[in-house]
C-alpha cells in the first residue's frame, strides 16, 4: 500500500477540480476545448477518488487518510481532513456526478461557457471539502464556499425567474448557517479548538463549562443550518424554486450532493457532538421527517411541472434520511446513508433526463408531452429504469435504503415505520403516474412526433447512473461494508447512553 498517496489523496481529490478551474481561467474562449478540459479534470478526479474505497481498511475504526496540519495559529485552525465510510462514499458520489454534469451541459450551455465550467469545478471542490473536513472551521469554510458558485450557476444560467430563485437560495442557507457559525464560535470560545474529535471528547468527558445550559441552543444552531439544507418540512420552500430555475447540471448537483450536506451534517455533528440533545429532540424531528415524506409526496403528485415534481420527490426522499438518522438504530443509520447515495444517483439521473427533454422542447410541463415512447424509445427505457429505481423496486438501489430506514424506524417506534412506509407507495404513485402521462398513449402534440432520440453523449451520461443503480441494488454490501463500521462508531455514545438509563 502506498502511504504517501494515502496521506495526500484527500487533498488531491478536493483541490484538483479547483486547480482545473483556475487553469480554465487562462484558457482561450474556445468552447469545445473548455468542455473537454472540464470533462478530463472531473474524470481524473473521479478516478483518483476511487482510491478511497479500494484502499479502505474496513476493520479499522475512526477516520482514515487523515491529514492534520496547522493552518492558522490564532484562532487555532487546522487543515484537518479525514474520511470514514460515510463521508468517503459521499465524496465518491460527488466525483461521480460531476463528469456527468459536464456531459449533460455540453450543448445546453452555450453562452459564457468558460465561467460555467469554472463555477462547476469550484463547486465540486467545495462539496468534497464539506464531507471530509474534520475541523469545524474548515467545515464551515467549505460549507459557505458551496453557496456562491451554486447561487451564480442558478442566477446566470437558469431559466425565467432565476434571479429570484438564486437570491432565495442564497439568503435561506446563508442566514441559517449564521446560527451554525455562532454555535461553532461558542464551542471554540469554551474549548479553544475547532477540531471535531477534540471537541467531541471534551464534551463527552464533561470538560466544557456551562455546556448543559448551552447545549440545547448549540444543537439547534447546528440543526437549523442543516434542516434548511436538507430541506426539512417548514424550511423547504427555497428548494422547488431553486430546482425549477436551475440549469440541469445545477439541479443534479443540488439534489444529488448539496442536500446531502444537510443530512451528513446532522449525522456527523448533531449526533456526534450532542448525543443527549439529539435523543431528546428526536421525536419532533422524526415527525418533521414524516411530514416531509408524506407532504413532499402529496405535493409532488399534483405538480404539472416535471422538474418541480422531482424536486418535491427529493423532499420526500430526504425525509426518509432524517427519519433513519434520528431512529438511532444501526439499521436506520445504514439505511439513511444508503438512501443519500441512492437518491444522489437516481434523482441526479432523473434531473438529467428532464434536462434532456427540456433541451429539445424548452418546457417541463407534463401536459406538453404524451406518447413520447414512440419517437424516443431509448429515452423512455432509461426513464422507466430510473423511475423504478427511485420508486424503490427491489434489486434496484432505492429499495435497499428505504427498507433499512423503515426497519430502523419500526424499531424506534412502530407508528413511525407505518407512516413512513406509506411514502414508498406515494412515490410509486406520483412517479409512475408522471411516467404514464409523459410516455404512454398516442403522441399528443405534433412537435413531439419527430423528437430525436438520445445522442451518444447523452447515453454516455445516463449509462453510469443506470448501471450503478442496478449494482447498488444487487450488491449493497459493497457500500454497507464501509458504512456500517462508521455508523457503529457514530452510535457508540447512544448505546452507552441507553445503558446509563437502564443502569439507573
Amino acid at each position, binding site marked *: 500500500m502506498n502511504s504517501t498517496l494515502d496521506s495526500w489523496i484527500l487533498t488531491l481529490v478536493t483541490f484538483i477540480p479547483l486547480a482545473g478551474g483556475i487553469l480554465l481561467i487562462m484558457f482561450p474562449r474556445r468552447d469545445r476545448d473548455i468542455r473537454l478540459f472540464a470533462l478530463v479534470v472531473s474524470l481524473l478526479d473521479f478516478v483518483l477518488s476511487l482510491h478511497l474505497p479500494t484502499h479502505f481498511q474496513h476493520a479499522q475504526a475512526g477516520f482514515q487518510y487523515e491529514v492534520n496540519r496547522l493552518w*492558522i495559529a490564532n484562532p487555532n485552525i487546522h487543515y484537518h481532513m479525514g474520511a470514514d465510510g460515510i463521508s468517503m462514499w459521499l465524496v465518491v458520489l460527488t466525483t461521480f456526478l460531476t463528469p456527468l454534469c459536464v456531459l449533460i451541459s455540453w450543448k445546453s450551455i452555450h453562452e459564457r461557457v468558460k465561467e460555467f465550467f469554472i463555477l462547476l469545478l469550484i463547486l465540486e471542490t467545495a462539496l468534497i471539502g464539506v464531507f471530509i473536513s474534520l475541523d469545524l472551521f474548515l467545515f464551515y469554510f467549505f460549507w459557505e464556499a458551496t453557496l*456562491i458558485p451554486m447561487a451564480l450557476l442558478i*442566477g446566470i444560467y437558469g431559466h425565467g425567474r432565476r434571479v429570484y430563485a438564486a437570491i432565495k437560495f442564497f*439568503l435561506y442557507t*446563508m442566514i441559517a448557517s449564521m446560527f451554525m457559525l455562532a454555535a461553532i464560535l461558542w464551542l471554540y*470560545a469554551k474549548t479553544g479548538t475547532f477540531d471535531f474529535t477534540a471537541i467531541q471528547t471534551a464534551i463527552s468527558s464533561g470538560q466544557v463549562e456551562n455546556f448543559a445550559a448551552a447545549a440545547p441552543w448549540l444543537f439547534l444552531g447546528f440543526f437549523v443550518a442543516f434542516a434548511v439544507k436538507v430541506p426539512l418540512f417548514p424550511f423547504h420552500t427555497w428548494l422547488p424554486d431553486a430546482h425549477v430555475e436551475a440549469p440541469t447540471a445545477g439541479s443534479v448537483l443540488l439534489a444529488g450532493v448539496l442536500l446531502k450536506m444537510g443530512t451528513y451534517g446532522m449525522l456527523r455533528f448533531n449526533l456526534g457532538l450532542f448525543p443527549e440533545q439529539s435523543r431528546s429532540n428526536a421525536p419532533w424531528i422524526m415527525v418533521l421527517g414524516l411530514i416531509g415524506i408524506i407532504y413532499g409526496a402529496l405535493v409532488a403528485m399534483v405538480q404539472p411541472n416535471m422538474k418541480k415534481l422531482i424536486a418535491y420527490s427529493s423532499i420526500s426522499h430526504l425525509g426518509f434520511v432524517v427519519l433513519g438518522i434520528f431512529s438511532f438504530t444501526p439499521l436506520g443509520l445504514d439505511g439513511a446513508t444508503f438512501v443519500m447515495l441512492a437518491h444522489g444517483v437516481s434523482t441526479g439521473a432523473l434531473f438529467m433526463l428532464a434536462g434532456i427533454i427540456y433541451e429539445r422542447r424548452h418546457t417541463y410541463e407534463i401536459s406538453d408531452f404524451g406518447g413520447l415512447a414512440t419517437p424516443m424509445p431509448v429515452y423512455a427505457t432509461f426513464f422507466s429504469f430510473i423511475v423504478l429505481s427511485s420508486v424503490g423496486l427491489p434489486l434496484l438501489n432505492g429499495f435497499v435504503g428505504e427498507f433499512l430506514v423503515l426497519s430502523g424506524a419500526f424499531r424506534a417506534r412502530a407508528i413511525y415505520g407505518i407512516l413512513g412506509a406509506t411514502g414508498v407507495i406515494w412515490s410509486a404513485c406520483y412517479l409512475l403516474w408522471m411516467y404514464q402521462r409523459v410516455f404512454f398513449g398516442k403522441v399528443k402534440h405534433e412537435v413531439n412526433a419527430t423528437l430525436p432520440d438520445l445522442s451518444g453523449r447523452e447515453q454516455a451520461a445516463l449509462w453510469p447512473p443506470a448501471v450503478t443503480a442496478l449494482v447498488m441494488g444487487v450488491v449493497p454490501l459493497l457500500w454497507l461494508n464501509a458504512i456500517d463500521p462508521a455508523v457503529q462508531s457514530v452510535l457508540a455514545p447512544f448505546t452507552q447512553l441507553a445503558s446509563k438509563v437502564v443502569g439507573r
Partner: protein
Amino acid sequence: MNHAAQVIPQAADYIRLLPEIVLSIFGMVIMLLDPLMDERRSQRILGAVALAGSLAALAATLFQAQYPGLGFWNMIQVDAFSVFFHFLVAAVAAVVILTSYEYMEVQEIRAGEYYGLILFGAVGMSLMSSAVELVLIFIALEISSISTYVLAGFRRRAAISSEASVKYFLLGSFATAFFLYGVALMFGATGSTSIKDIGNVLRSGQIPALAYVGVALMFVGLGFKVAAAPFHIWTPDVYEGAPSPVVGFMSTAPKAAVFAVLLRLMFEANAPGRIWLIWVVAALSMTIGNLGALVQDNVKRLLAYSSIAHAGYLLIAFAALPNNGIPAAMFYTAAYAAMNVGAFAVVSHFASAGERYVTLEDYSGLGSRSPLLAAILTIFLLSLIGIPITGGFFAKFYVFSAALQANLVGLVIIGVINSAVAAYYYLRVIVVIYMREPREDVPVSPIPAGLGVALAISVVATIYLGVLPGRVLEYAGKTAAEWTR
C-alpha cells in the same frame, strides 16, 4: 513635564517622527512644484511625487519600527501599535494615489493641492496613531480633518461636492469641539493629558465623575469621525458628493487613525464606562447602517451606509477584553481598509467623467461587459459580506469571538443578525452585475496601469488576510501584550 531639562530634541526623537517628516516634505515639494508646472503635465509628475512620498513613508515606518520608544518629551510613542497604523495609512495613501491618477485626468481636476492634501492628511493620521498625549492627538486630528474637508469638495464644478465639503466641515468642527471639551474635562479629572498618566490615575481606584463625562464627550467627537451611529448623519451625503477616490481614502485611513486613538483611550487609558457606551453605539451603528443600506440605489450611498455598519462591527471589539479586543479591532481596520479602498477604486473608475455612472442600474451586466472588473468588485463585496477566504470574514470572526470571550452574547447576536441582513444588499449589487442584461449606453473603459496596480494590491491584501490572517493578527497581538504588561 518631567523632561523639562532636556530642551533640544535628540536624533532619536526625529526618528520617531520620521514618517510624518517624510510625508510633510513630499507634500511641500508638491505644493512648490505645482505653480511651476504646466497644468496638463503636472498631473502625472505630481502624482508620481506623491506616490514616491507615500512609499518613502512606508520605508520610513519600517525603519522606525526598529527604534521603539517614546519621543518628543513623551508625546509620541513608537511601538508595534503605531507602526501597524503608520503602515496602514501609508499603504492606503499609496493605493488612493494610484487610483487618483486616472480619476484626475478623467474628471479634469487640478492635481497639485489634491496630492499635497492627501499627504498632509496622512501626516495627521499617522501622528494620531503614535501620539500618546491628548493635546497632540487633537492637533493631529485637526490636521487630518482639515485635509479631508478640503478633499471632499474637490469636484469644484459639482454643487453636490461643495455641499459635501461644507456639511462635513460644519459638522466635523462641532465634533472636534466636543473632543476638545472632553480633553479639557479629562485634564480636570485626572490632572494630566498624557494617556499613560490618565490610565494610572483611573486604574488607581476612585474614578471622578468628571472622567465619565470627559470620556463620553471625547467619544462623541471620535464617533463622528468614524461615522458611528447616532453621529452618522453626514456620512451618506458626504460620500455621495465627494470624489470617489477621496471617499475610498476618507472611509479607511482617517477611520483607522481614529480607531487607533479610540483604542489608546479605551484600553491604554482604561476609560471608565466604556462597555455600555460602546454596546449601545455598536448596536445602533450596525442596525442603522444596514437598514439604511437596504434601500439605496446609489452605489456610493450604499457603501456609505455599509461603512456605518462596519464601524459598528468594529466597535464590538472595543467592548471586549484587551487581549482579544485590541488585535481584533486592529485586524478589522486593516481588512476593512483593503476591501473598501478597493471597492471605491472600482467605483471611481466606473463612474467616468463627472461621476455620471454611480447608480446600481448602471452596473447592470458588468459581468459580461468587463469580466475582470466585475470579478474584482465581487471579491470586495464578498469580503464586505464576510464570506470565507476573504479578509472580511476573519475580521468579523475575530471581533465576534473576542466579544464571546467577554460574554457579550447579546451584542454578538445583534451582530450576526446584522451580517445576515447585510448580505442582502451586497448581494443585490452582485446580482445586478451578473444577472441583468448589459447596458450598452454605459461605457466601460479598459483598466489603466495605475488603477490595475491599486486593484491588484487591494485584492491581494484582501485574499491574504482571508487565507493567512495569522501573521497580521500576531503582530497586532503584540500591542495588547505591551499595554497590559
